[in-house]
C-alpha cells in the first residue's frame, strides 16, 4: 500500500524566478497555510524528496542544474511547475537566454499557472502531484 499520499517531501528550486512564486511557495510552510499538517516537508535535498517544485523559467545557466537535481531524486518522483514562467516562460519566453518552461527539459506532471501562483493553488498542485506519485509507484511495480 503506497504511503506517498501521507508523506510527500518536496524540494524547491528557483530557476530564474522573480521571487514572487518562491515567496508564495514558502508561504505554504508558514502557520497560515501549514502544509506540514499534510505531512509535506521541505527537505532541501533531492535525495530525500518526492516532488520537485520549480519556479521561474529555464535558461541556459540553470538547465544543467535542473537536470542534475531531477536525476538525483530516487523514484517515484513528480515535477510541479509553479507560476506562469515555469509553465511556459511567461513574459520572458522571447528573451535570448530563456529556453522556455520547465517542460522543455523535464517531464512536468502538474502545471500551476499564476503570476504569482496563489498558495492555495500551489497546495492544490502538490495534492495532484501526490496522486500522480501513487500512479507512478504502481507502474514501477508493474514494470518489475
Amino acid at each position: 500500500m503506497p504511503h506517498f499520499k501521507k508523506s510527500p517531501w518536496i524540494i524547491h528550486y528557483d530557476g530564474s524566478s522573480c521571487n514572487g512564486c518562491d515567496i508564495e511557495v514558502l508561504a505554504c510552510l508558514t502557520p497560515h497555510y501549514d502544509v506540514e499538517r499534510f505531512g509535506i516537508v521541505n527537505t532541501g535535498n533531492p535525495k530525500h524528496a518526492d516532488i520537485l517544485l520549480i519556479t521561474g523559467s529555464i535558461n541556459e545557466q540553470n538547465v544543467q542544474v535542473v537536470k542534475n537535481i531531477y536525476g538525483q531524486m530516487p523514484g517515484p518522483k513528480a515535477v510541479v511547475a509553479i507560476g506562469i514562467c515555469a509553465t511556459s516562460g511567461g513574459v520572458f519566453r522571447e528573451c535570448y537566454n530563456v529556453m522556455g518552461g520547465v517542460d522543455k527539459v523535464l517531464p512536468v506532471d502538474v502545471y500551476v499557472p499564476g503570476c504569482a501562483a496563489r498558495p492555495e493553488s500551489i497546495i492544490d498542485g502538490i495534492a495532484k502531484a501526490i496522486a500522480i506519485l501513487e500512479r507512478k509507484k504502481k507502474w514501477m511495480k508493474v514494470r518489475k
Partner: protein
Amino acid sequence: MNLLYGLVYIILAPVIGGIAIGLDRKVTARMQGRVGPPVLQPFYDVLKLFEKESAVVTRSQNFFVFAYLIFMALTGFLFFSGGDLLLVIFAMTLSEIFLVLGAYSVNSPYSFIGAERELVQIMAFEPVILLSAAGMYLATGSFYVGSIARSSNPLILLLPGLFIALLCVLTLKLRKSPFDLSTSHHAHQELVKGVTTEFSGSTLGSIEIAHWYETVMLLGFVYLFFGFSPLLAVAAVMLTYLLEIFIDNTFPRFKLDLALKSSWAVTLILGMANMLVLWFYVKGGLL
C-alpha cells in the same frame, strides 16, 4: 539480567519512539501556532521511505547503516535487560561510529561536515554519560542497570548536578536545537542534511528507526535517576521530553565550538562538583 524486558524493548521501542517523535512534531507545531502533522506521521514517513527506489552511492553504506541500526537496538536491549551500564554506553558509541563511517563512505562534502560534527558531538556527550554511570555506581554500588533501577536510593537527590548536565547534553543526542549540528531539518543552507545527506529510501528509513530506538534508550537513562519511584520516573521522563521540545523551539543553533565548550563546561562544573560531594558522602559513611 532479564532478557524478557530486552525483547519487549526490541519490539515496542520503535512504536514508542515513533509516537514520541510524532508528539514532538505536533507539540512543536502547536508552539509555533501551526496545526502540525498527525501524531503517526513518523510512521508514514518511514513506510514511504521503504517504498522509494533504492539509490546506493557505495555498497558499504548499506552495511554501515545496518550495523548502526543493529547496534543501537542491541544497546537498548542490553540496557532494558538490565545489563552493564558501561557496556551499554560503549555499545551506543560503537553504533554512532558506524553512522559516522557510513557518512564518510559516501564521499560527499556535506556528509563529511556532518560526520565531523557528529564526532565532536560524541566527544561532547561521552564525558557526561560516563560520569553519570560512575555517579550511579558510587550511589548504588553497581554498574548493572537492573540493580540501579531497583535501588531504593533516590538517585536524583544524590546526583542532581549530573542530572542537569545530562539534560543539557541530551539535546545533542536527540538531535535538537541548539545542538542539531550534525544533521538537522533546519540547516539546509549550511549542510543540506549533514550525516544523512546521501542516504535515501530504505537506508534513510533505517536511520530513522535507529533514532527511535536511541530516543527510547535515552529516556530510559533518564528513568534511572528516578528508579526509586516508577510513577515519578515515568512523569519525569515525560517532563524531560517536553522540556527538550521546549528548548528545541526556544534556542537557535549553536556554533560547533560553542556547543562543545558549553557542554564540557556544564559537565566539568556540575558533573565534577556533584561527583566530589558524592565521593565525600560515601567516604564519610553517610551512604
